[in-house]
């Protein structure tokens, strides 16, 4: 029998997949991998922009890193602040969105309207818009941010003012730190709700994917709703908890202060080397957080198969 030359049909069929992913591979190599290497190289160099449009690179060793970590006035402080607030916000957002998703999954009148309202933050997720909305919210709810504090006390105070309570608590002899945390938590409320839009959607989809027969069995066996939640709902959505935590960390990081710092260093002070070094440092921190958190969570995740 004559042997067929070349590849079999199934093998050729498999290789067709390469045509499909080819555009992505080109993009990955050209724009991602290349630039990732470049970013690391930049962070070790001094970069000068030439008049003609090009730029010249001179090797500077770890000078940029040394400057960012040892000499820069506020880089380390803002780095720790940003990472700290990410670590505080992630559990708050995750549990809040799971909680809201469970509520929205129940059947009640006007559910469509409530859902439409809850996804509005997804529509308005923009840095420029959010800054303005935040200041509006503070005026409306009486919450305070440090910068707006002077403004609001100067002008006519309307509505419920958090500072009134803060003052009362201070008279009560509460420690200042506790009051600051409470006031901070109240003014973060909107931030948490606002950052939860996509996560609520993901949890909602997960909740609807749980087979109703599981709940039926639990009901027949006489499980309480508390037991049902911890034995059925929670394990079934746990893979999505991992997804959501990862998404939340990336989302919070991309909006965080530290990215802004690197951006201004690179594009306003035109110190590209230092900017790249700052980006690399903060990205490494985020990747470390991501690695640790997903390792810890994935140990507890329940996979159905």
């Amino acid at each position, binding site marked *: 029998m004559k042997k067929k030359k070349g590849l079999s049909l199934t093998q050729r069929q498999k290789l067709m997949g390469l045509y499909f992913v080819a555009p992505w591979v080109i993009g990955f190599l050209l724009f*991602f991998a*290349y630039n990732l290497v470049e970013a690391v190289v930049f962070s070790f160099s001094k970069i000068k922009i030439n008049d003609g449009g090009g*730029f010249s690179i001179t090797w500077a060793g770890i000078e940029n890193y040394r400057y960012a970590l040892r000499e820069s006035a506020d880089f380390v402080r803002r780095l720790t602040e940003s990472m700290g607030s990410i670590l505080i916000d992630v559990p708050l957002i995750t549990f809040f969105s799971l909680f809201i998703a469970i509520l929205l999954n129940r059947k009640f009148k006007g559910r469509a309207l409530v859902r439409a309202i809850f996804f509005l933050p997804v529509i308005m997720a923009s840095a420029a*818009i959010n800054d303005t*909305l935040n200041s509006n919210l503070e005026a*409306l709810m009486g919450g305070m941010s440090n910068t707006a504090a002077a403004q609001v006390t100067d002008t*006519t105070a309307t509505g419920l003012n958090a500072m009134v309570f803060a003052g009362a608590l201070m008279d009560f002899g509460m420690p200042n730190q506790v009051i600051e945390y409470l006031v901070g938590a109240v003014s973060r409320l909107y931030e948490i709700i606002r950052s939860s839009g996509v996560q609520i959607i993901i949890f909602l989809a997960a909740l609807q994917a749980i087979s109703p027969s599981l709940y039926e069995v639990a009901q027949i066996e006489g499980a309480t709703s508390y037991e049902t939640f911890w034995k059925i709902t929670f394990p079934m959505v746990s893979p999505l908890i991992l997804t959501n935590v990862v998404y939340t960390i990336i989302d919070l990081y*991309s909006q965080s202060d530290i990215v802004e710092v690197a951006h201004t260093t690179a594009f306003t002070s035109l110190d590209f080397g230092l900017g790249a070094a700052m980006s690399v440092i903060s990205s490494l921190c985020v*990747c470390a957080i991501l690695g640790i958190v997903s390792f810890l969570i994935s140990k507890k995740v329940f996979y159905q198969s």
Partner: protein
Amino acid sequence: MDLQLVQKAKTYTKSEDFKLSVKKSENKVKNFFLNLVIIIILIGTSFVILSPIIGLVSDSFMPLEDFYNPLIYLIPENPNAQNLITAFKQIDYPKSLAISLGFSVVIMLLQAFICSFVGYGFARFDFPGNKILFALVVLTIVVPVQTIMVPLYTQFRGFDIFGIISLISGKPLNLINTPYPLLLMTITGMGLRSGLFIYIFRQFFKGLPKELESAAFIDGAGTFYTYFFIMLPNAIPSIITVMLFALVWQYNDVFFSSLFMENMGFLSVKLTTLASKLSAQLQIRDPNQVKLIISSGVLLTILPLVVIYLFLQKYFMEGIERSGIVG
């Protein structure tokens, strides 16, 4: 007579019937309070979400005199659209809106097309290196774009592929302040959150039954034909989801827009520079007046999205529930 009644009542309280009805009414009370708590939470959260928008509308129609009047809160006494008109002129609304929406629609279509194409490749073909390449897709989701923003900027400032462009025109191209950087990145699956979209499509295509394609192949359809005419029509729920996200994220994007296209006149970029423009060009020094005008600008910016969302809301939710985000 009385004794008899008491006796009757006593036996009744011991009966199963009574216990059941007590339990029922207990449940009723419990459910009532549970529902009450849920309603309060939902209404409260809805208020927190809606209040900034209420504030925006109020600011937009609030003249400065009314703003300084301590007796007036939220509802202006002499509403006028002065703030809206100022913002409208300053951000050059019709033109910026056309640019922003037009560009976002182009990006949206490209994202949906390219990402579904690539996602299908990852989902259905077991070519060598599939797993490794997909792990790299996840890497592009996880590593923030901000890490590579500096080299990206310099790359597009002197854009060249292996020296070919220099060879033809003598020097590399400067693509900053043109739409090409983002278009190029989107076409090659590296655009704004493209990794996430590829992930969504891969999960979705994995969930579709294999028989769909087998039938097409047996009938003699080629791979690309099968993809375009059999698989794509079946992927409409996830296409709607991805399109909406792509549109909204691109429309609101400040990062890429200000990095590559600061002078192209996108709404989102104009909004960030509105405050400095007001004080520099119109000599408005009062921070409260600036705030009122910026609020009007924000209202104008989000208005088209809210309108689109209200129309598509139902499809959006249905799309998400069936889109396979969950996998």
